[in-house]
C-alpha cells in the first residue's frame, strides 16, 4: 500500500490517464402519486453530468441542497442505477463487458458518508466493521483483524482502546475516523468523501481534515470531496466543480474558481459566504429566495430564474460547459463555465478574502 503511484500494479494507464471519467451521468427520480401510482412528476436529480478526476488530485464538488452532489456520489458507487451515462475507472468502463464489474470497481473506490453514527453497524465492534469487507473478500480472520487494528492506528485511534468498542461509545469525530479506516480497508485508490466532515464540530472537523490530508499522502489516494462548505472545499481541493440543480455550472482549478468565478451563480455563492470580519460584514444579499425545487426545474439555464443577467436565450437552451469567453484554456485542468452571456461572465463579484 505504500508504493508510489508509478509502482502501483493496479495503475493501468499511467499518470496521464484520468482515474475517473464520467460522461453524461443522469438520474431522474419519478414521483408517483394518484390512484394508479402513475408518475406525476420527476426530480431531475442529476442531469447530464460529465467530469474527470485525475490521479492523485482532489476534486471538490460544491453546491447547495438539491444540486445533485450526493446523488452523483451514490451513482458513482452504484448504490443506485444511473438512467444513463458512463463511468470509466482508470481506462476500464464500469459495468461494461470489456471493462470491469461494479464489484471490481468498488474494491478500488470507496466512500465515507456524512452521518458517522448511521454508517456504522450498531451491532458490530469497530474492528469488526473495518475487517468486514476484507474478510468477505477472502482475507483470513487474523489478517483482517490485524489490518483493522493497523488502520485504527493510522486514523489516530489506539486499537487497544477502540477495537472492541461499539459505535454508541464513541464521539462523532472518533466514529468518522473509524468510517475513514473502514473505507481504506480495501486499499482503494479513489475515496469519495460525501459531506464527511459536515456533521462535526469545528475543532473536530479540523482534526479530520488534517487526517485526510495525511492519509492521502501516505496511501497515494485520489479524493472526490463533496461538501456544501465553500471554505472547506477550497482548503481541500485541487480542482472544483460547482453544481446547481443537477447540472455542473462551472469547473476548474481551485484558485481560478475562487479568484475569478465566471458563472453568476458561483459568484453569488461565494458572496454569500460569511466574511469572518466584523468590520466588513456582508451588506447586500447576493441572491434572493431559495434554490428552486429540482422537481420540474426551469427550462434552459436552470439558474436563470435567480440570475440578474438573464436574457431570452437563457430560457431557450441549456448552456453547455465551455471555456470562459475571455479566459485562457489549460488542457489538463480547464476552467469551464456553463453560461450564454459574456456580460454575465465578466461582471465583477463581491469579493472577500
Amino acid at each position, binding site marked *: 500500500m505504500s508504493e508510489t503511484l508509478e509502482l502501483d500494479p493496479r495503475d493501468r494507464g499511467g499518470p496521464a490517464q484520468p482515474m475517473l471519467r464520467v460522461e453524461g451521468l443522469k438520474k431522474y427520480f419519478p414521483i408517483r402519486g394518484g390512484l394508479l401510482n402513475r408518475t406525476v412528476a420527476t426530480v431531475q436529480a442529476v442531469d447530464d453530468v460529465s467530469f474527470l478526476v485525475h490521479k492523485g488530485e482532489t476534486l471538490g464538488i460544491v453546491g447547495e441542497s438539491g444540486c445533485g452532489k450526493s446523488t452523483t456520489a451514490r451513482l458513482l458507487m452504484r448504490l443506485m442505477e444511473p438512467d444513463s451515462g458512463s463511468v470509466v475507472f482508470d481506462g476500464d468502463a464500469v459495468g461494461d463487458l470489456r471493462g470491469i464489474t461494479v464489484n471490481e470497481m468498488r474494491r478500488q473506490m470507496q466512500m465515507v458518508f456524512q452521518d458517522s453514527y448511521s454508517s456504522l453497524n450498531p451491532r458490530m465492534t469497530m474492528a469488526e466493521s473495518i475487517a468486514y469487507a476484507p474478510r468477505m473478500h477472502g482475507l483470513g480472520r487474523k489478517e483482517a483483524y490485524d489490518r483493522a487494528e493497523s488502520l485504527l492506528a493510522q486514523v489516530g485511534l489506539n486499537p487497544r482502546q477502540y477495537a472492541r468498542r461499539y459505535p454508541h*461509545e464513541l464521539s462523532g469525530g472518533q466514529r468518522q475516523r473509524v468510517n475513514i479506516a473502514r473505507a481504506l480497508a480495501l486499499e482503494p485508490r479513489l475515496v469519495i468523501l460525501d459531506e464527511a466532515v459536515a456533521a462535526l464540530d469545528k475543532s473536530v472537523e479540523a482534526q479530520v481534515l488534517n487526517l485526510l490530508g495525511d492519509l492521502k499522502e501516505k496511501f497515494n489516494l485520489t479524493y472526490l470531496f463533496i461538501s456544501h462548505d465553500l471554505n472547506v472545499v477550497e482548503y481541500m481541493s485541487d480542482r472544483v466543480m460547482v453544481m446547481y440543480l443537477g447540472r455542473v455550472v462551472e469547473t476548474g482549478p481551485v484558485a481560478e474558481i475562487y479568484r475569478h468565478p465566471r458563472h453568476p451563480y458561483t459568484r453569488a455563492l461565494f458572496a454569500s459566504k460569511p466574511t469572518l470580519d466584523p468590520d466588513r460584514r456582508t451588506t447586500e444579499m447576493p441572491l434572493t429566495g431559495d434554490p428552486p425545487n429540482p422537481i420540474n426545474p426551469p427550462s434552459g439555464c436552470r439558474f436563470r430564474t435567480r440570475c440578474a443577467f438573464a436574457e431570452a436565450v437563457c430560457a431557450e437552451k441549456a448552456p453547455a460547459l465551455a471555456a470562459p469567453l475571455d479566459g485562457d484554456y489549460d488542457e489538463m485542468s480547464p476552467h469551464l463555465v456553463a453560461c450564454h452571456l459574456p456580460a454575465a461572465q465578466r461582471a465583477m463579484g463581491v469579493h472577500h478574502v
Partner: protein
Amino acid sequence: MSHTTMDEFATGARPGADDVPAAAAPGYWKSVGQRLARDPVTLAVTLVLIGILVITIGAPLVTSYDPFAGSVMTRLKPIGTPGHWLGTDETGRDLWTRLCYGGRMSLLAAIMPVSISLCLGGALGVFAGYAGGLVNTLIMRTMDVFYAFPSILLAIAICGILGNGLSNAILALAVVFIPPMVRVSETVTTQARQLDFVEAARASGTTTFQVIRYHVLANVLGPILVYATSLISVSIILSAGLSFLGLGVTPPQPEWGLMLNSLRQAIYVQPYVAALPGLMIFLTSMCFNLMSDGFRSAMDVRLSK
C-alpha cells in the same frame, strides 16, 4: 443535550496517551440480557411460563392420574375435593391432570404455527424488504389478499377445507400468521436497508447474501422476534378457539380449548372448575404478551441514561 464520550484523553491527537486496553463493551445481545434481568415484570412472567412448561412437559411427574380415565362416581367434583384438588370434569377425570396434559397440545398448537410463519414469513419479508421494487410489490400485494379476511374466519375456512385435527389446525394458523409476519419483517428490513451502514456494506463490494447476513439480519431479528412472541399470545387464543369449535384437537385428547367447550355444560354446576381451562389460556397468553413487551424495551438501542 448531547452527551459526549467519556474519555477526552483517548483520541488520535495524542496516541499512546492512555495505553490501557479498554474493557470490551458487552455485546448487544449480552446487554439486552442484562436489561431483561433487571426488569421485574419480564422476569416474573418468564418464571410463570417456565412453570407452565414444566408442569405440561413433566405432567406424569406432577400427577399420578391418567388423563383419559374417568369415573362416573367422581363427576364434577368442586375445587378442593380430597384427591382432586382442582376438581374433576364432566366424565370424572382429574382436572389438574387434564390441565397439565392439555397444556402440551395447547402450547404445541400455539407455538408451532408461529414458528412456521416466523421462518417462512420472516424470510419472505426480509427478502421483499431488501429486494424492493417490483418483487416487493408482488409479495406485499399477495399478502394483502390474505389480509382481507379476518384471521379467525380464515383459520376456520382453512380448517374446514383440510378437515379437523391438530396438524391441520397448525397449518391453518401458520397460513393466517404468515401475512402479518411478512409485513412486519418487510417494514423493518426496508428501514434497515436505507441505513448508511447497509449502503456502506453494499459499497464495499460484498455479495447481497453477505450484506443481509452480517448487516441486515442482525438488526432486524430483534423486532421480528418480539413480534413473534406477541403472536404466540394471539396464537394460543386462536388455536384454543379452533379446538373449542371442534376444528382442532379431537376428543378425548386433553386440550384447553376443547376442555373449555366440554365443561361449558357444567358452568351452572361447577362454574369455577369450568373456568379453569379459560384461566390457563388467559394466563399463558398474557404472559407471552408481557414478555414480548419486555423484550421490546430491552432491545431498544437508544440506551436511556
